[in-house]
């Protein structure tokens, strides 16, 4: 963001003025913020960053800002904030420390700035070393013709004990089978469902969909199904309350499952 603002400001300068300016100012849009500029300025000192004169650096920076102002260069806000801070640092470094004053000393602030510059330089060096490494797709290569893993679908069939019992009961009563509930109307009462469920629950060792507990003849006709579902559900809750069964549902509209509690 700051970089963009700065670039715009730099472009506003007439060509003649730019040519007249010092190298640093010509390159001003090449800087990535005030810290970058400070790092570049520090190179003129030609010393180890650990032994850099922060005072000298502050003066260089302030001079740069002055020149930019003289050229009516619009400096981005963060460059000016840094200038103000460096002016403050400069005064701290020049004046003898005031023991009554709180906050970090000039020397501490200067040391931290030197640390920041050294760290930024170190990261630049690391970036360069990183980019100079052998790189995938340029210096070394992956398999050009990968053979993808194909996914194969396998179906596993399953059934519950209740399915098995119901199936057997269905066979043994086929043809002759007329569930007594068929003689009544399309209503299964909760008492009926509860009586039925009490007998069935003993066989429900594993989680079984509540829908499987609906009595024969109550599963297809929507009205009967609704009645039996409501009654069976209420009966299931009753069994859970009695501590004879456990009930669960994985999520909204997921099947409600029931299991005996041992």
């Amino acid at each position: 963001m700051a970089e963009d603002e700065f670039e715009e400001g730099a472009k506003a300068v007439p060509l003649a003025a730019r040519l007249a300016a010092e190298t640093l100012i010509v390159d001003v849009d090449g800087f990535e913020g005030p810290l970058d500029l400070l790092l570049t300025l520090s190179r003129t000192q030609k010393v180890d960053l650990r032994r850099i004169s922060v005072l000298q650096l502050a003066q260089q920076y302030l001079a740069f800002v002055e020149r930019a102002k003289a050229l009516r260069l619009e400096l981005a806000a963060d460059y000016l904030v840094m200038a103000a801070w460096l002016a403050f640092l400069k005064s701290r470094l020049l004046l003898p420390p005031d023991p009554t004053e709180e906050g970090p000393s000039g020397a501490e602030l200067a040391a931290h700035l030197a640390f920041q510059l050294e760290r930024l330089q170190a990261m630049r060096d690391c970036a360069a070393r990183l980019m100079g490494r052998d790189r995938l797709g340029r210096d070394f290569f992956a398999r050009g013709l990968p053979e993808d893993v194909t996914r194969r679908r396998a179906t596993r069939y399953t059934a519950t004990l209740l399915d098995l019992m119901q199936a057997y009961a269905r066979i043994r009563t086929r043809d002759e089978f007329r569930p007594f509930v068929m003689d009544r109307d399309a209503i299964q009462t909760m008492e009926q469902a509860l009586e039925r469920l009490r007998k069935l629950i003993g066989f429900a060792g594993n989680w079984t969909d509540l829908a499987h507990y609906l009595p024969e003849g109550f599963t297809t006709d929507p009205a009967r199904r609704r009645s039996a579902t409501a009654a069976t559900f209420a009966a299931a809750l009753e069994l859970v309350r009695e501590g004879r069964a456990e009930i669960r549902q994985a999520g909204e509209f997921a099947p409600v499952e029931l299991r005996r509690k041992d």
Partner: protein
Amino acid sequence: MSENIENNDESLFSAPPLAEQERMIEAMLFASSEPLDLREMAARMPHGSDPAEALVLLRKRYEGRGVRLVRVGEGWAMRTAPDLGHLMRREVVETRKLSRAAIETLAIIAYHQPVTRAEIEEIRGVSVSRGTVDQLLEMEWIRFGRRKMTPGRPVTFVVTGTFLDHFGLESVRDLPGLDELRAAGLLDNRPPPGAMPRADPDEETEAAPGQSELFED
């Protein structure tokens, strides 16, 4: 300038050692998205190289390995060994409910074992499809029992330990009896009809060869 001298030196000193050429074609064949022919390889290698000779070495090196050097048309390519193809597949398991025919067949086997196919058909009142029995066998929920000492010595079916495990039963004797089923309201109060519906006698004989076929498998 110095580069020129180097290039000259290189061609003067002729091709790299064969072992180095082998490394080169190994890398090229690995990285290439399509088979490479000798001409292409030679074009990329230092002057004087002989990819044909290096290929022989490389091919030998990969003999019996997990990857092989194979000829594809005019070119050469690296391919995984065919016997390891199963490693390139991943299974996705999907659980589905057993069909009504299968669960009924299974119930009959569990309650009546050992039971022949003809007996299953008699109880169900319909013929049992080959697929249904195969499916239960494949799931290892049923297996073949002893042959019955009746004419034709038909094979029988029994349930397996896998079956008991799945349904959490210690033995088939733990299956609820008819009385319990009735008490649970799963069976009508009226006694089941004395005579079971008989299947078409033709169906039974038809089923017999199917059984022995299954048994052979």
